[in-house]
């Protein structure tokens, strides 16, 4: 019985963690895009959990701490970094 409870708790935690992927327009310079990591750090996300792909113009945020990151919060953070968000997807 205890095993089932523990398994249930673990499954519920894993269900809460999410990966957020979104496109960023204008992201052509890696030095300037450092601001994206800084903005997510200010929201409580570990910068190491923010992956930037300059080729695909994509940012991936591994939200393993289940921080509340609404679409609006993400859009504002990217705007403050100087860019535009397109197509936010959550997994």
């Amino acid at each position, binding site marked *: 019985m205890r095993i089932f409870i523990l398994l249930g708790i673990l499954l519920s935690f894993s269900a809460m963690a999410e990966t957020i992927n979104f496109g960023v327009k204008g*992201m052509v310079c*890696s030095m300037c895009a450092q601001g994206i990591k800084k903005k997510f750090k200010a929201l409580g996300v570990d910068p190491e959990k923010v992956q930037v792909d300059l080729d695909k113009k994509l940012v991936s945020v591994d939200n393993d701490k289940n921080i509340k990151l609404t679409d609006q919060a993400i859009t504002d953070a990217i705007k403050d970094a*100087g860019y535009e968000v397109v197509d936010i997807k959550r997994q």
Partner: protein
Amino acid sequence: MRNLWGLLLVGFCSVAFAHPVIYQDGWVISSMTMADMTDANVSYSFSSRWSSGINYWRLSDMQGNEQEWQLAKLNHLAYRYNGDDSQANLYLHSGLGRSDSEQNENRLGYMMGLEADWETRKYFLSAKYLHLGSADTDHGIWVGRVGISPILADFSSLQSWAMLQVWHDPITARETKITPLLRFFYHNVLWEMGSSLKGDMMLNLMVHL
């Protein structure tokens, strides 16, 4: 005392050239130095559209007479285009403070400027005009750059660019100064090294914090 500001700034950041407004709450420490000029800058972006800071300029005329400006500066990103594979910007510069020369010390100094750039991951173009004014001499400086990045590196890898800078200031330069240079940046640090066709060395440094 006259050179204190400049020495502090140059000593602190060494020797730059890039976006005057960065992400909100970001700091830029930069300087750009050649034999007849120094431009050193510390600024804070209080939004992604505005930054303010302090700026030191040193310019020498054809006779070797130096003039300095110590300015409180306000920069504005007037327009930004964020495209799928490119970005373009238009910046306005302004500054007010003091100007010193051997003839006149502690006089009103000011600066106004306009800067535009366009870049992709592979190509870079920029043009800048700065007007530095004082009781002594006014300078109108034109700076243009074109660059290409031969290797498209990952976000966290060393980025490298080959660039050509054209500098035209009718007062300080006997003729238009053309400077091939190499630009590198890694994470939040950028450095550039170049030499004009006449052998005038240039070393620039910029840090984003």
